[in-house]
């Protein structure tokens, strides 16, 4: 009972007395001028000593030293008498210093501010030393850069410090925790980080190009009293301008390149054809108009027949050119059976024996001039060679000019071979002249010359010959003025004309002429209207152009049955501009290419 009463009295006394004095030791150095003499604070820096300060307050007459005195009492001692301040600091006014010997931790002190002469206690405070500890600020604050963000806008730093030298942390006498604060320079708001028991702390997310202030303070762990702040350090990381400026530049470059590439692609695709022509010029392939070159290479002969027959190369235009016709004078007196002396020979008056001559027809030279023939082009030599003798080995016809080896050449020649190989129009006497002026063409030279043979006009229908190198006889319609083939003969042209009396050796396979647009199906027809016949060199006197006679028609094509299809005569063809000489109308180029022997054989059964 007494105990509780005393307790309550004590508490009330404290309440009425001084109120919250510096019990926690936090209020400092702020003397209250409205009050009388009072303690302004007590502090311990290292938990080994402490000081107390007081102020005279409004009582100015007590300011001289010695007027106010401090007495203290430790409550754990056996004696509870009041002792005076052991040390009044001389340098600082109104300070009482308790050194190590007078400082007892975990003991509560009570101090009193008295005026001894009047024996008045103006102020009293009680505390325990560990509760008034305010550690010194840490020392050695510095920072190091941890990293900078990729964009160069943010950076992280590591802040380091050392504990205050006065605090005996090493011995374990004090356990300190630290608090770091930072702010952008010259702003008012400090950023506070969590308490850190170590001596370093990382700060993340700072902005480059901004100056930061960093400071640190400490307190005893599990206590409330922070010490003073350390001096602030300035943290500044300059922004790297190049990085930022190059970043959009690289983007611009990349996008520019992509745009250019897209434009190029579009350009290429839009101008594909032209570019293809520029960069990859087409190699002219052997091509006959309307006929697939592949088919020629690989196709069946039947197809080829049909193709060739369907060719309307032999337009009336060709035929309607100036109807120059090589006239072959026929020697009617000669017997038709001439062995070696083929009709051609007779026709041309070539001796059988003769040096093998090779008639060089200038078929190759006249490339590109498909429809026109320049009569001047052939060499006179060729003509001359034609006249005297005949070439050939043995039984070869004089018109055989080429060796067989050259056939394939001709066959694949791209140039529009001048089919207009002049053929010597020799006034040979055909043996078969019984009636007509017809001469049967037994064979064609590769150069386009006509090999005549003593064929029957109205010979029996053909026998089909399936062999290759089948000789093909083409009935040739020759005119004395112009040779025409009648319809009958025309029909038989395609037929497989039997050899007849005359040997047909030396038939040359007709070289297939691959002329662009000029396919010669191996038939020569000389009609009044069209002269697409073997052109005969103008050794013969110029033949007047005969008007087209309706009796004679143009073999239009060879149908599937290898029969000639004739066309009604058509209008006058246009004159080739190339030919200067009307007498010798421009030789049409061999509209059709030469046939190879195999094709020849297929064409005429």
């Amino acid at each position, binding site marked *: 009972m007494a105990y509780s009463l005393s307790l309550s009295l004590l508490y009330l006394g404290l309440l009425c007395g001084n109120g919250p004095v510096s019990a*926690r030791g936090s209020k400092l150095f702020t003397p209250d001028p409205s009050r009388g003499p009072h303690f302004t604070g007590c502090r311990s820096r290292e938990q*080994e000593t402490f000081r107390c300060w007081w102020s005279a307050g409004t009582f100015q007459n007590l300011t001289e030293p010695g007027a106010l005195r401090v007495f203290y009492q430790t409550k754990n001692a056996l004696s509870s008498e009041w002792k005076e301040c052991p040390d009044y600091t001389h340098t600082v006014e109104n300070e009482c210093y308790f050194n190590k*010997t007078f400082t007892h*931790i975990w003991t509560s002190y009570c101090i009193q501010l008295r005026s001894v002469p009047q024996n008045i206690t103006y102020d009293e405070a009680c505390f*325990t030393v560990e509760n008034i500890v305010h550690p010194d600020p840490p020392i050695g604050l510095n920072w190091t850069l941890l990293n900078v963000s990729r964009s160069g806008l943010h950076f992280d730093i590591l802040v380091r410090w050392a504990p205050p030298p006065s605090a005996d942390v090493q011995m374990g006498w004090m356990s300190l925790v630290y608090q770091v604060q930072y702010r952008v320079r010259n702003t008012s708001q400090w950023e506070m980080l969590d308490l850190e028991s170590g001596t370093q702390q990382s700060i993340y997310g700072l902005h480059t190009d901004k100056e930061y202030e960093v400071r640190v303070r400490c307190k005893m762990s*599990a206590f409330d009293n922070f010490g003073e702040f350390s001096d602030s350090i300035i943290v500044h990381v300059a922004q790297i301008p190049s990085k930022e400026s190059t970043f959009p530049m690289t983007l611009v470059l990349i996008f520019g390149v992509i745009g250019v590439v897209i434009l190029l692609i579009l350009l290429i695709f839009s101008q594909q054809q032209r570019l293809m022509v520029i960069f990859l010029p087409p190699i002219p392939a052997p091509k006959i108009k309307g006929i697939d070159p592949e088919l020629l290479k690989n196709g069946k002969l039947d197809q080829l027949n049909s193709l060739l027959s369907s060719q309307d190369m032999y337009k009336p235009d060709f035929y309607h050119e100036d109807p120059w016709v090589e006239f072959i004078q026929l020697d009617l007196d000669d017997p038709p059976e001439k062995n070696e002396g083929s009709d051609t020979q007779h026709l041309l008056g070539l001796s059988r024996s003769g040096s093998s001559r090779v008639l060089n027809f200038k078929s190759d030279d006249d490339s590109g001039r498909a429809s026109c023939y320049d009569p001047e082009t052939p060499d006179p030599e060729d003509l001359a060679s034609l006249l005297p003798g005949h070439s050939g080995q043995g039984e070869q016809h004089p018109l055989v000019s080429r060796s067989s080896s050259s056939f394939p050449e001709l066959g694949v020649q791209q140039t529009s071979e001048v089919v207009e190989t002049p053929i010597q129009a020799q006034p040979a006497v055909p043996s078969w002249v019984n009636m007509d002026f017809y001469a049967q063409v037994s064979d064609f030279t590769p150069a386009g010359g006509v090999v005549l043979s003593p064929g029957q006009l109205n010979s029996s229908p053909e026998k089909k010959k399936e062999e290759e190198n089948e000789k093909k006889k083409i009935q040739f319609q020759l005119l004395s003025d112009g040779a025409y083939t009648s319809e009958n003969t025309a029909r038989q042209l395609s037929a497989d004309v039997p050899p007849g009396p005359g040997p047909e050796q030396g038939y040359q396979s007709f070289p297939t002429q691959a002329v662009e647009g000029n396919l010669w199906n191996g038939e020569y027809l000389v009609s009044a209207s069209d002269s697409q016949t073997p052109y005969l060199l103008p050794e013969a006197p110029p033949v007047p152009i005969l008007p087209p006679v309706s009796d004679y028609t143009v073999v239009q094509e060879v149908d599937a049955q290898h029969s000639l299809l004739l066309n009604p005569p058509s209008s006058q063809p246009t004159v080739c501009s190339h030919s200067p000489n009307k007498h010798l109308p421009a030789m049409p180029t061999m509209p059709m290419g030469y046939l190879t022997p195999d094709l020849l054989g297929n064409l005429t059964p």
Partner: protein
Amino acid sequence: MKESEEKARSLLTLKQVILQVWLCCASLWRFWVSHAVPLDCKDETGSLTHCTSISQEKLLDRVIQHAELIYRVSEESCTLFEEMFVPYPLHTLRNQAGNVCHSKPFPIPGSKSEIQQISDTWLLHSVLILVQSWMEPLLYLQTTLDRYDDAPDALLNKTKWVSDKLLSLEQGVVVLIRKMLNEGILTSSSAIEQTLAPYDGQSPEVLESVLRDYNLLTCFKKDAHKMETFLKLLKCRQSNKLSCLSH
């Protein structure tokens, strides 16, 4: 003045002598008992097994960690109680509460210089005595706090936790003493009797009882800090004898 000083000095020396004698007798008595009961370690099944050994430094570190934690929790409990039950104007009493803290049978030096002079033995024994002296009051505090109507659970949990930790701290200190000082100590209840305020059946919300409990909490907090500091000093001495002593 001189007489009083001389009296004080003589009292101090007397105190020291009494303390030394007491310690000697206590240790002798325990030695006579020679009942060095080692700490029993029990595995999951409950059977007694040989305790796994631990190095002295590690043990000391663990003991220090215990003491730190106990101190921190006690400080939190004190703050909780203060906010909850103690009227604001009386918060200053936390510093004056040392007046009525129960006194120890022997004075424990308070100044740093004195503490530096005492031996390791004394340090450890002081810690042990402190720990043992607070076991009962904390149990008492638990019961009283339970009687409060609106005592926060955190406060109750903390108090209970502190009691448990105090037990393990005592065990640790005993082992330390055995290892460092080669002494065997009985972990029996302390011979120190606490004179606690009798429970007079008043309602716990009365200011008086509140203040009493508040006083108890603050005193315990102070002693926990003392224990922690002692153990840290001991650690410094163990690791680096020279610098710790010559301060």
